[in-house]
């Protein structure tokens, strides 16, 4: 199976001289197409930092990053933006739905950013909402949804562009166990039915156990995975 994301000897350093801090310290990661991978570890171990770098939202201090077997080290920010928009979807712990816009607009946002026409964007957003069983909430404002509904809308937003990889940082962290289960199920269905690669950052060992593989990180270093 092809490798979607490969990181070689990643480091991420914060601060200078006396205050220098290695958030990541020589991390190697390989994520294959269609896998579901959990990144686990204690708080402050560097999980989010790793995910941000793998997802092109942050830049490593050292090391190489290959997306679809191409080194993106020399990419300009515009190329990185486009790659992220097209190939990656995001689900955040705190949802980040725009409360003033309708759910439909929120879900259509990545398509609009991609420069797709409003009509087409809305059409595809509606289909994505249907897939998470929220089509009747399309016209509601983001604030009108419950936590579980919000996260489902976020999943719709994450997959509306047909990405290769969906990154989820503590996707169930703000949900009760029942709604959390629903969200997990949705994510794993995407993985099974559509072959979307999942990268999930989580504290939840139960959720982590459901993934094909776990990357355990401690003090910026990989313990196993």
């Amino acid at each position: 199976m092809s490798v979607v994301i490969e990181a070689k000897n990643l480091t991420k350093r914060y601060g200078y001289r006396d205050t220098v801090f290695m958030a990541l310290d020589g991390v190697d990661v390989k994520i294959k197409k269609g896998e579901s991978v959990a990144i686990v570890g204690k708080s402050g171990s560097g999980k989010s930092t790793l995910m941000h770098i793998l997802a092109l939202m942050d830049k490593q201090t050292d090391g190489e990053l290959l997306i679809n077997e191409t080194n993106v080290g020399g990419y300009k920010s515009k190329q990185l933006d486009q790659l992220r928009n097209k190939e990656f979807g995001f689900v955040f712990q705190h949802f980040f739905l725009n409360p003033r816009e309708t759910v439909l607009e929120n879900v259509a946002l990545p398509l609009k950013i991609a420069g797709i026409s409003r009509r087409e964007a809305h059409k595809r957003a509606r289909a994505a909402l249907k897939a998470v069983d929220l089509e009747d909430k399309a016209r509601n404002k983001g604030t009108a949804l419950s936590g579980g509904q919000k996260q489902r809308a976020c999943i719709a937003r994450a997959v509306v562009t047909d990405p290769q990889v969906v990154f989820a940082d503590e996707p169930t962290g703000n949900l009760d166990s029942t709604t959390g289960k629903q969200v997990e199920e949705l994510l794993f269905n995407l993985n099974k039915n559509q072959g979307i690669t999942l990268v999930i950052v989580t504290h939840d060992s139960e959720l982590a156990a459901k993934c094909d593989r776990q990357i355990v990180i401690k003090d910026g270093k990989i313990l196993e995975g």
Partner: protein
Amino acid sequence: MKIFDILITATRNLFRSKVRTFLTISAVFIGTFAIALTVGLNIGVTNFLNQEIGALGAEDVLMVWKNTDEPIPGFGTDNDGPRRYVENELPPAQISQSEMDEILNLDNVSEVIVFRMVSVNNIRVENSERYHIPLDIGLPNMNMNLLSGEHINHQSENPEIVLSYEFVEVFGFSDADDAIGREVIFEVSQPDGYTREVAATIVGIHQISALVMGAGGGGAVGNAALIDEISAINMYGLPEEMVDAIFFLAVVVDDIYEMEYTREVLTDMGLISQTLEEQVIEIMGIVNAISAGIILFGAIALMAALFGIVNTLYMSVQERTREIGLMKALGLGKRKIFLIFCWEAAMIGFFGAAIGLLAAMGVGSIINQVAAETFLSTMPGFQLITFTLVSSLMVILIVMFIAFLAGTLPAKRASKMDPITALRVE
């Protein structure tokens, strides 16, 4: 993101914090209102003057007077304090008879008319009421917009006038044609208080605006014979050197293409010459000065508005940190984020400018109406405040552009925002 979506996003953002947006727009509104109104005034006056200058004719006439610091009686005072009277000395700023002959002998000069200011008490025809009227000497070849008859002839020995159309009715003539050849009588006062009567023949009926060279709307212009006769009465009993004094001449040239050369000769003779057009343009100078004052006020108001825009957008960037972070995380480029905020600023500019312009148009039309009924009632066709499509668009575009520039500061901050920091939840 498509430009259209950027514009929509930016415009929607405007309506989030309605009160703040409204206040910012108000400041732009005030500045634009003042500027638009002034631009309208300037266009109105310029249009009117151009129209008038075009209609004046008399392109071949030069007004001529002495180039001297000495005061012309009745035209300003001596800055050097009281002057001692010297027996038999010519009054200052006077053009002498020999100078006048010299001018008449110039190659390009066909006619020289002494330009005297006269005053008459009233005008009447036989058995009519008496009416006030301003009377001036007619400029040769001036376009009088004659409804009937012809222009006065300065060579004629007989007193002649061209009379304003308004008098046709009050004097009981059946129409303009009927007035031609009729006799009018002016009552003229001597300095000693006695009054005399001077008769003149109506040779033309005109309809022109008040702006035309002192020939007041609703007035009359006379030929040299009439004006000389009335001037003599006005000055009856005064010292001879005052009566004969010449201060202004109207000089008619043969060939207007040689006029510049003639003017140089006149300048060398120590005389100032001015065309009718230049005199009207002088009025324009005053209008421009007033305009500059109001525009300065508007510009200051706009400056204040700019700070308002910068401030508003900084707050807006602050409030929308998370949203900006999200859009960046989802792949929106720096440049487009920058554009969203700049466009938001431009929209504030647009709304402020558009409302300011509309208000200026509304107030302008009220002013025009009031003006037409009061101080401009003698000048039909003078629309004091005029808006053209081009000027209106220019005002809006310029204000939008300035607002856009003001928006670049906060927009820069937004575009530089780091998505991870922005998305961090405190």
